[in-house]
């Protein structure tokens, strides 16, 4: 009846993928990027805990005699588990800060993802898992190097990696949420490093026990996620971890992770869907 029959009709080939597949596809995209740029990335993040181990565990540690404070262990064995926890937090916070802000602001690839069927919540989950995968890589490298220099004294050391990875991921989530709400150029991340990560690294039980701190500042160490991770990691590596405190530490870390997940997903959505 009409003259428009000749006109072809476009039929789209795109479909909505299932949530977990969407997450995996985004990770696949990140992997494509990583394959091109892995050297710089590995040097800046993966090697950092190893350098700390060399300087503090081996170099400085050669001047420390085993004593009651180190549980009678050599200083290298005393700090090997905690340096991993603290190192992974540093990597996690760094990856969750400027790179995430860049996804919104400079690289802007998050906007491209948001215009596909992948949702902001799925994007958040994928970015978190991607950071976690980088932590796994850093931890694996560290585990091997530390074994080679004799930093592990018991098979419990194998549990140090999952604890450190959990602590790192838990710290990444609130920082990702913060990055998603940052409108400026991200100078705030330098402050996060200076006033949160750095003091935490120095005073939350990584290099010496928290009970050496003046009584008034000890609570500051106790509320830091690093202290909970350190207690667990040192406990499994050197022994002496009791059940209830251990469950408490795990609960704190899981709680932080869950809190950050909910907050982060919401912040991603609020930034991308306006």
């Amino acid at each position: 009846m009409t003259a428009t029959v000749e006109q072809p009709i476009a039929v789209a080939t795109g479909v909505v993928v299932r949530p977990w597949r969407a997450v995996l596809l985004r990770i696949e995209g990140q992997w494509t990027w990583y394959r091109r740029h892995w050297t710089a990335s590995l040097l800046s993040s993966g090697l950092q805990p190893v350098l700390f181990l060399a300087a503090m565990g081996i170099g400085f540690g050669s001047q420390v005699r085993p004593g009651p404070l180190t549980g009678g262990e050599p200083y290298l064995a005393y700090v090997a588990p905690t340096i991993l926890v603290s190192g992974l937090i540093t990597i996690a916070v760094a990856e969750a800060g400027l790179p995430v802000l860049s996804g919104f602001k400079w690289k802007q690839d998050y906007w491209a993802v948001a215009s596909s069927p992948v949702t902001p919540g799925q994007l958040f989950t994928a970015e978190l898992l991607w950071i976690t995968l980088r932590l796994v890589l850093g931890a694996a490298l560290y585990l091997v190097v530390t074994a080679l220099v004799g930093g592990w004294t018991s098979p419990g050391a194998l549990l140090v990696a999952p604890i450190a990875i959990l602590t790192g991921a838990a710290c990444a989530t609130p920082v990702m949420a913060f990055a998603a709400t940052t409108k400026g150029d991200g100078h705030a991340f330098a402050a996060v490093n200076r006033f949160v990560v750095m003091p935490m690294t120095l005073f939350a039980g990584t290099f010496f026990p928290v009970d050496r701190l003046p009584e008034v500042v000890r609570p500051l160490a106790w509320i830091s996620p690093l202290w909970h991770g350190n207690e667990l990691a040192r406990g499994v590596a050197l022994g002496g971890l009791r059940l209830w405190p251990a469950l408490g530490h795990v609960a704190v870390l899981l709680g932080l992770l869950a809190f950050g997940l909910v907050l982060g997903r919401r912040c991603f959505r609020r930034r991308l869907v306006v």
Partner: protein
Amino acid sequence: MGSEVSSAVGEPVISSSGLVKRFADFEAVRGIDFQVRRGEAFGFLGPNGAGKSSTMRMVSCMSPRTGGDLRVLGMDPDTHGPAIRARIGLVPQEDNLDRELTVRQNLHVYGRYFGLTRKQVRAKAVELIEFARLTDRADHEVEPLSGGMKRRLTIARALVNDPEVLLLDEPTTGLDPQARHLLWEKLFALKQRGVTLIITTHYMDEAEQLCDRLVVMDAGKIVDEGSPAELIARHVTREVLELRFSPGDQHNAVDAVLDLADRVEVLPDRLLLYTADGDKAAACAHDRGVRPTSTLVRRSTLEDVFLRLTGRTLVD
């Protein structure tokens, strides 16, 4: 008969009524009604801040509406965002390519988000790289490409899912004339393939070249709607006579030419006479002793309509 097909061709792919977008205390879109039919090229024209991009973002399901109704491909963007996005393509105002990946990788990665298999994206990438005339650069990183090349890649990327509707937000802003014409050619080819095009632009020549139908927006509202020819016929005369003067002198000539045109517009250095016959008006003005420094008779364009409807005040 083909009646099924024909009904599909003319059906609305997008329809809105009373559509509103409010940001805190600012109302960007203030109750607009429009329909876009399948297979047509539809334009949103308007100055900066008219609400074009806000409308586009609502249609592409990246921005929830504050009020009114909106249907895209028969679905509600509030509840079916991913399903709609799976079937449309979006070319944003600013290119958001991954500049650290190659041309081909950009297409591969993005195509996968639409559920395409690796085999499908590989084949599609070859086709789109050719479409975007980037064959020589297929395996180069995006960063050093020219603005026109990046723009073509952004458009190619938006086509990775063979979208039924392609939304282009100021597709040629910042491109040189060669790049613009090449893009227009590509968009025309898409239209021939049955893709519905929705374009925002403040380039009038672009709207005249590409759009079957358009709406002119100003301050969040639609001020008129029609084909470019209809809008010109409705709001301006067939021709415009431009009389140019040394700045200031033009005021002296206004009285002498007032009855020679349907409308006379006084600009800082010239008079615009909207008239059916520019040459005749120019001769009459000369007979009456009007001596401009130069005269120009031209066809009315959509630009004249645009300025008539949205004013000459600078909006930022």
